[in-house]
């Protein structure tokens, strides 16, 4: 999972979203079509070509107070239309660590 933090050229191969971390608490968020941020991947705006991706990213970067470090991440769309993370890194970001936490209650 090469870190996507240094995204220079924007070229997407399939459906993608813009994801970032919410500024005040750091949690994982996704850019929505309503120009906001949501913690639910199901509410993310889906982009399907590089122009759309570029536009969504530019708009996300401009909303610097809401969330930080936005980048484009791949997703998969299930048969039922459900949005799923496109790689292991994004899966871990969405569902949390794979290891169990020592003090999880």
């Amino acid at each position, binding site marked *: *999972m*090469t*870190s996507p*933090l240094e995204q220079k050229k924007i070229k997407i191969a399939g459906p993608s979203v813009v994801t970032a*971390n919410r*500024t*005040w*608490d*750091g*949690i*994982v968020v996704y850019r929505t079509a309503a120009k906001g941020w949501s913690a639910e991947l199901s509410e993310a705006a889906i982009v399907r070509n590089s122009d759309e991706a570029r536009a969504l990213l530019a708009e996300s970067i401009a909303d*610097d*107070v809401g969330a*930080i*470090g936005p980048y484009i991440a791949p997703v998969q769309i299930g048969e039922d239309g459900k949005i799923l993370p496109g*790689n*292991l*890194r994004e899966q*871990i*970001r969405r569902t*949390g*660590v*794979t*290891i169990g*936490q*020592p*003090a*999880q*209650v």
Partner: protein
Amino acid sequence: MYAYDEIDRTLVNERVSEFRDQVKRRLSGELTEDEFKILRLQNGVYLQLHAYMFRVAIPYGTLATNQLRALAHVARKYDRGYGHFTTRQNIQFNWIKLAELPDALEDLAKVGIHAMQTSGNNMRNVTSDQWAGVAPGEIEDPRIWSELIRQHTTLHPEFSFLPRKFKIAITASDHDRAAIRIHDIGLRLIKNEKGETGFEVLVGGGLGRTPFIAKTIKHFVHGRDILSYIEAILRVYNQYGRRDNIYKARIKILVHELGIEKFSREVEDEWQHIRNSSLQIDDEVIEDIRSRFTYPAYEKLPHMPDELRQAAADPDFEAWRKNSVAPHKVQGYSIVTISLKPTGGPPGDATAEQMDALADLADKYSFGEIRVGHEQNLALPHVAKRDLPALWKALDKLGLATPNVNLITDIIACPGLDYCSLANARSIPIAQELTRRFANHELANLIGRLHINISGCINACGHHHVGHIGILGVEKNGEEVYQITIGGRADENAALGTLIGPGVKFDEVADVVEDIVEAYLALRERPEELFMDTVKRLGVEPFKERVYATR
């Protein structure tokens, strides 16, 4: 223990209110992330995959019980009830909210803890031997010098904007527990023929993308000259260090490119200009720092108390004692290492409850002092031998008596892809699986001393290059793949490991390690021949054959 003076306390408090203001301005949008990033990094705040991460310094690994309780409090109140001890005598909290960070910093400042010098291109937390001041045979307490350097370099303008981060480690024992040979500057405290204190100075060590073992730049620098000598090194680095390329910016690259001879000539020239300046250290300054370190009022105790003699009949106690208890410089006392490597657990994590309970135990059995070591374990530095059985029982109840210190399950691992935004692959689940495979402590003892180090990317936070077995996670076509090296070591005979062959998949790593261990058990000449010695004697070939014969 060390008592901070007024200057430090004021500085720490000022930093907290400054940061509170910065966070407020960030949240209101007055500061952009670009502007704020450097400010948060100066206060130990990174962004990870799931949240902000907050790194707190534990200078030279020494903690008082009120400080450990404050860390437990931060874990409980602002995080998810645990903290992660790192290889550089820091603790990291993985789930902190930016909006609450100023409060967390303030709570820590009350007990003299801060996050300065835990990130950014400055002088980092000066680390030392976690057994400093108590190890038998130690020349003198290296923390006095760590503290001197800490004071001199904290917020020093010349050291705050270096080409890259800068790490110093100090040891004063023959056996190097501070891994000085993989630091930018390593200092080995020694005495000259006249009995004067000074240092062998090593420079240019480091791991990451381009690993190097540090080279000796000067065999003896007198204690009084150590600040000017370090400053001379830093000036040469500041002058020539590559600021244009982050991968070439560390001092190790400069030392390598100039060659140690040329580099040392440059340093020598620079040093002659400044060595007789105000940087020369007066004896009073050292004595003042020395006087701030207090040592317990040890009792006169027998070498072999009855309590210990009786407990020796219990094989479980003995298994723990053999691996966790080390000799102390004072008769009747021991140094007790506390394993943060339970079977199936993430290496280096401790819960708030464990930290609090450990603070209580330290008050009861270790004169209120705890140490943090680079192996991601803790230690109680002054335990009376007669108290060992009682301490063991108490630790066992807390899940802190895993008898695996220095064994194959005492694994060093970085956070990897479960937490870290730079990661290529997961580290912690590999460690967890290995601790399950080798959970049988008899087997682990049979194998003997064997260090496994795991990093989730080439930044090498898990020191994989110097693991006896090193595991590096990389990515190949979207999949996690692990490269295995053997023969590395981090101590006084530091060496980089050798790759044994093509990378293996996530599910295969533990099998490969088992193969390597089986090969070792079959190849060693006698039980006392450690893994390292067998690798040294035979090279990597037999291990390679064993691992790849069936793959």
